[in-house]
């Protein structure tokens, strides 16, 4: 008995640990293979340089944001102010860029601001003893209000960089390099330092982590700060895409992040099975559908439905009873 037990347990356990990851990698590989085979039949190719560039520009903002958001989601938290943060950062970068003629001051202001927002989002939960989604709702509304006031004062719905050349941010190579660097840095922080390890532990069991000497307040705020910096990087590319920001920039991005992370096999309640790669895999899966579905002749209005159905399938396949709780 002991013998048979020993042999089969590791396999089962491997699946328990990595099942969601395997399923999501499988999904991405399936999409890549499917589009590689089907698109040439219709005289297109997903591997053409133009399409790869499109894919890169479609995926970059979501991927950069989601990688950062892994730190928040692994805590079992949900931040719905992300979209408005991106909107505000992009607006500041364009506005300050036009004032000063350089993007650097705007980016620095955004970095400072992101830390402030991270502290508000991360610290108010434990300090005031409320679930963390509440402060993020408040932050979202405040940012949304600021953005509305800014644009109605300016008397326009969008502002554009005038003198600064932003074409460099359209380069797929730069996008890839920045994404690779961000993934490398965050993966290091997530897997080989205390912040990441503690984030997962706090997500899995706050009480037990606390009794093992993990400060909820300190590390939650750190996680939000790391995420916030990633959001600023994402905002640079969001802004650099068209050199502009509008009152609707970023709207709904937090939902894109959630969809990307779940497609990537991130447990919705956070904890030990959280992975940085979930963000990348999920964001690419979603974008490859964005780019690929029209290429196999699916009308644009259908793509939303198809993506929703695929999302549902993934959720049904990867969800487990115990982990069915929603993040807070």
């Amino acid at each position: 008995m002991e013998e048979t037990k020993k042999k089969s347990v590791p396999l089962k356990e491997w699946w328990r640990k990595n099942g969601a990851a395997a399923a999501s990698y499988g999904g991405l590989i399936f999409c890549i293979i499917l589009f590689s085979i089907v698109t040439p039949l219709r005289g297109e190719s997903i591997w053409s340089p133009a399409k790869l560039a499109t894919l890169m520009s479609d995926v970059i903002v979501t991927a950069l944001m989601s990688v950062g958001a892994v730190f928040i989601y692994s805590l079992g938290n949900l931040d719905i102010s992300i979209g408005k943060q991106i909107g505000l950062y992009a607006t500041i970068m364009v506005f300050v860029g036009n004032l000063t003629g350089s993007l650097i001051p705007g980016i620095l202001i955004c970095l400072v601001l992101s830390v402030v927002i991270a502290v508000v989002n991360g610290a108010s939960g434990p300090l005031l003893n409320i679930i963390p989604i509440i402060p993020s709702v408040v932050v979202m509304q405040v940012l949304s209000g600021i953005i509305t006031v800014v644009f109605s004062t300016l008397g326009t719905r969008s502002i554009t960089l005038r003198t600064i050349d932003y074409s460099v941010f359209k380069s797929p190579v730069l996008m890839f390099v920045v994404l690779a660097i961000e993934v490398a840095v965050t993966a290091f922080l997530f897997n080989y330092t205390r912040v990441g390890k503690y984030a997962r532990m706090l997500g899995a069991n706050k009480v037990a982590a606390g009794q093992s000497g993990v400060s909820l307040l300190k590390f939650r705020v750190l996680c939000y700060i790391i995420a916030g910096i990633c959001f600023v990087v994402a905002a640079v590319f969001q802004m650099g895409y068209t050199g502009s920001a509008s009152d609707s920039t970023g709207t709904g991005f937090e939902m894109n992040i959630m969809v990307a992370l779940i497609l990537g096999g991130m447990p919705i309640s956070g904890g030990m099975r959280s992975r940085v790669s979930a963000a990348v895999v999920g964001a690419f899966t979603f974008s490859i559908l964005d780019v690929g579905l029209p290429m196999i002749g699916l009308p644009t209005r259908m793509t939303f439905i198809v993506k929703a159905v695929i999302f549902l399938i993934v959720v049904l396949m990867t969800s487990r009873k115990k982990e069915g709780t929603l993040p807070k």
Partner: protein
Amino acid sequence: MKKFRNVTKKATAAVFAGVLALSVLTGCSTADGGSSGGGSGEDTNTVGGKILLMSNVSSGPMYDYNIAFMDKWTEELGYTYEVVYGDSANDPAGNLNAVKNAMTSDVVGLIVMQDGGLVDIMTEYPELYVVGLGNDMLSVYSDDGANAAVADNDHFFGTVAGGYANGEDTGKMLAQTIIDAGYEKVAVCMSPAFAYPQYAVADQTIREEIAAYNETAETPIEVVDDEATVLMFKPLDATFFNEPAHQDLDAIIGLCAGQQFIYPPLSSAIASGTANPDTKLITFGMEGSSDLVADVGTGIVQQLYVPNYEEIFFCMAMLDNAIQGKQYSDYTQSEVLDGVYVHISSDEIMSNIENNSPLLNGDMSKSIITDEVAQKYLTRYNPDATYAEFREFMLSDAFSEKAYE
């Protein structure tokens, strides 16, 4: 129990996957049919390709008409087409993304119904021919507009606005309507100025014109408040009618899609007695539902100004000429064309529109864009056609309510 749940879950996933596979397959096959039907133009020396229509609506009479028009004319002229949906808030990045994702190697032309990110789209796809529809494209034609660079791009052929591009003209038209109707107390509501700056101009023009009229008039007209009540993309608040200044209105001028944003609160205010039962609504745009259609001309909505959807012909002509390499010889510079209003001011005109026009039903056999019109204005058929003539046609009564009598 647990087992059962698992089975249901897997079964549901399987069913979804099946439905998905089927829908993708059918999606493919219909699209296949479309493209094979289109490519074989009658003329041997015509150029084909795909035209994208970036729409800012996804339902309603205008959408239905646009689809019907594209169905008919892309096939007639040997093109295919696809509708893509612009960002719901006209965000530059969103629009660019929509175009990028739909881009295939055979796309030759783009009709845009909103202007965000236009300069980026045209930088990204310099070969693409672009033309605007139902939009005054202020960002292109104002000096410091975000897309001002596009105005001089030789691949951009201007735009036809949804009605007057100039707010002053709109204001004068509406002031005259008020004076002619004999109203004595009116209110103005409008969509926010940051999205529609021309409406703020129109609002002020109405007030100036009425003030000028009052100097000589026997019974002066009162326009309540100092400026229009702003509707932030949502219906007028019911409390509007409780304010003392808003009692006993003869009419409300809606500088917006008034059937959507003003009609519902107004009709319920009339029903509940908070508003004068004879209050009329003068507004823009047209909704397709039968009760709203029945109301126009006799009920609350006394006058409706509808930019004629058929002006999409402007886009088709400019794109086709360019794609075939035969642009009007006298065309030099892109511009904004005023849209011609279909002015519905009576029940009779409304039934004309209902029965004799394609505007509510997308029936292209009732269209004013007949084969003769195409023969006359498309350079592929008539090499002598000029932009001057075409422009005159686009601005003529051929597109007004008179066309459907």
